[in-house]
């Protein structure tokens, strides 16, 4: 090309054309090739175009300056273009890594459960690094689950423990790496990679970035699950309250009319059928009350309406309320003067004694004697309710407090009475248990914590 141009162009311009050629070579090929090309260009330039032609010698010393400058410029160009190429390579690599991370993030954003997320991350890292990946998640410091890609490899080794202990990336070899999955709230697990190629430092950077992305995704999944659970709990609480008020009012209204009308019929001497309607409506009311009590008691965060009460008075009210059901069973109450006032939810504790007495009425024959003794001790105040009936079937002393437990013949209630008693005692920080008396019959022991203080008594 240059020889064609020669007759028309100055040698200096030819030199430029050569430089252009060198630059082209430098931009395409490596450093060494470019260097060789520049030397070669200068040589050709000298031989072909500098007088005397066809020799390496030069007639004018100024051409030496030309050669020198050409060489220097060529070298500079080669250096610059090489560096540019290197930087372009690095930038490309970064773009590649960023794209990979972006894809990982996208992949993870689809995952719902922790297992799914770990799987997605493992698959991704395995394909990105051409190797095998295992992910181990931990919960409260102990290993929870292990997910590994196809052939799987051991995650139980020392490296894993060290990684977990130090929370740092551990390099086992130039192909095996253990990466901690570190979330904002703490260490969530370990990502182990066994690659088929050597891992460079840029790879480690990528691995750490992947692990961190996985950690964010795991934490997000956790939070989302907790939010869901809270929402479900709030919803069921709302439903429970709606149910309670519905039972309380809506079911009771027709029941009032039924039992009221039946009682009127009984008064007017309408006979057995009227009596049946009345009894059954009372029974229905009783069962509704049982359900209502149990539901209310099982509501979390139930607040007791605590006030100072006299146990003697509360027991008395309970006996009065169950008087009809107790029939001709005689109740004797022993309440000494040294029993302090107790801090109780009056309505609940009365319900407790009502349930106990009803239970006794159902399980004992007519004329059974019932004794209620109240004893004040240093730490507790004890109430013992005993009867002279047949007692509790041996072995069933605990079982009777379970919900829906009914002795064979009992059809009156849903079997929640004693379970409710236990729930109420528990709410008051006390306990209740049953045993058989040596002298025959059953004995229910109630223990209330003794209040440390007493309210101020009025002055006369």
């Amino acid at each position, binding site marked *: 090309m240059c020889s064609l141009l020669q007759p028309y162009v100055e040698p200096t311009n030819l030199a430029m054309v050569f430089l252009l050629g060198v630059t082209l070579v430098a931009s395409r090929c490596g450093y060494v090739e470019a260097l060789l090309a520049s030397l070669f260009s200068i040589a050709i330039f000298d031989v072909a175009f500098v007088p005397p032609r066809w020799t390496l010698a030069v007639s004018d010393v100024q051409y030496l300056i030309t050669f020198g400058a050409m060489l220097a410029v060529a070298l500079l160009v080669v250096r610059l273009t090489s560096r540019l190429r290197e930087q372009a390579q690095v930038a490309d690599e970064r773009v590649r890594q960023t794209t990979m991370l972006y894809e990982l993030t996208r992949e993870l954003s689809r995952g719902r459960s922790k297992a799914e997320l770990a799987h997605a991350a493992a698959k991704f890292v395995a394909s990105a690094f051409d190797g095998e990946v295992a992910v181990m998640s931990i919960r409260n410091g102990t290993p929870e689950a292990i997910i590994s890609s196809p052939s799987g490899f051991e995650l139980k080794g020392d490296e894993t423990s060290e990684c977990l202990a130090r929370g740092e990336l551990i390099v086992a070899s130039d192909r095996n790496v253990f990466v901690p999955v570190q979330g904002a709230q703490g260490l969530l697990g370990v990502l182990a990679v066994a690659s088929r190629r050597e891992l460079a430092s840029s790879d480690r950077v990528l691995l750490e970035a992947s692990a961190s992305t996985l950690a964010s995704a795991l934490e997000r999944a956790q939070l989302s699950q907790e939010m869901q659970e809270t929402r479900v709990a709030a919803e069921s609480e709302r439903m429970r309250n709606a149910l309670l008020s519905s039972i309380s009012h809506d079911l009771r*209204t027709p029941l009032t009319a039924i039992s009221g009308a039946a009682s009127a019929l009984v008064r007017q001497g309408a006979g057995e059928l009227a009596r049946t309607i009345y009894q059954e409506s009372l029974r229905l009311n009783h069962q509704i009350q049982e359900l209502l009590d149990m539901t209310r008691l099982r509501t979390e965060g139930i607040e007791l309406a605590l006030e100072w009460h006299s146990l003697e008075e509360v027991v008395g009210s309970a006996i009065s309320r169950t008087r009809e059901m107790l029939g001709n069973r005689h109740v004797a109450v022993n309440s000494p003067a040294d029993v302090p006032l107790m801090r109780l939810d009056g309505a609940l504790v009365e319900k407790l004694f009502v349930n106990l007495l009803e239970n006794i009425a159902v399980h004992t024959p007519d004329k059974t004697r019932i004794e209620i003794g109240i004893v004040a001790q240093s730490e507790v105040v004890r109430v013992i309710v005993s009867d002279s009936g047949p007692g509790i079937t041996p072995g069933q002393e605990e079982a009777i407090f379970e919900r829906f437990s009914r002795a064979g013949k009992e059809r009156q209630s849903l079997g929640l009475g004693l379970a409710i008693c236990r729930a109420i005692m528990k709410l008051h920080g006390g306990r209740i248990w049953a045993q058989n008396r040596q002298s025959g019959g059953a004995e229910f022991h109630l223990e209330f914590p003794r209040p440390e203080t007493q309210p101020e008594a009025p002055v006369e």
Partner: protein
Amino acid sequence: MSSAARVLLIEDDYGIRQFLRAAMEPGQYQLLEAVDGLSGIRRCSETRPDLVLLDLGLPDIDGVEVTRRLREWCDTPIVVLSARGQERDKIVALDAGADDYLTKPFSVGELFARMRVALRHRRRDPVVVVTTPDFTVDLDARTVSRRGEPVHLTPNEYKLLAALARDAGRVVTQRQLLAEVWGEAYAQETHYLRIYMGQLRHKLEDDPAQPRTLITEPGVGYRLLVDN
């Protein structure tokens, strides 16, 4: 009673109205009806009944409000009907001037007992002597006797007993009792009542733990029962 007592029932539920209508013994009671609070108040002023039976769960204005408005101009006895669990409403209604209460579901027998007591208080002059199976209280002479023997009560014990005796048969709320014996400032000191009622029972009842006359109305107040 010479003529049938006129009873105004303010109740929105059809079933309850129906059974009460059928239950009222014709010679004894004449039943008038209203289906909500506002028409109930109006009916009361038009007909001037001897007794009002008022349901607390009314559709337009609640029973407590009806009680308040009625009490502004009339002193007809009011017995409120409430569902179990509506303790607060009951107490508020009683403090606002209702005379007694019944908890649904109730039997006709309970209803008549309450109505009788309420009507008796209306017709009679202020009570002077109250006789119960266990003891007798003379509110004029300020004495209490049991089986012929006088019983010594401390000043506050007597005041408490007198408060119950003046309203014999009717429930008296905790607040009313505390206010009458110790003053308005002590309206929250329910433990005073626990202590004093216990003392009264020990002095006046055969079995203080199972009282027949000095009855607890749980969550509401106390009642001195006269026709056991």
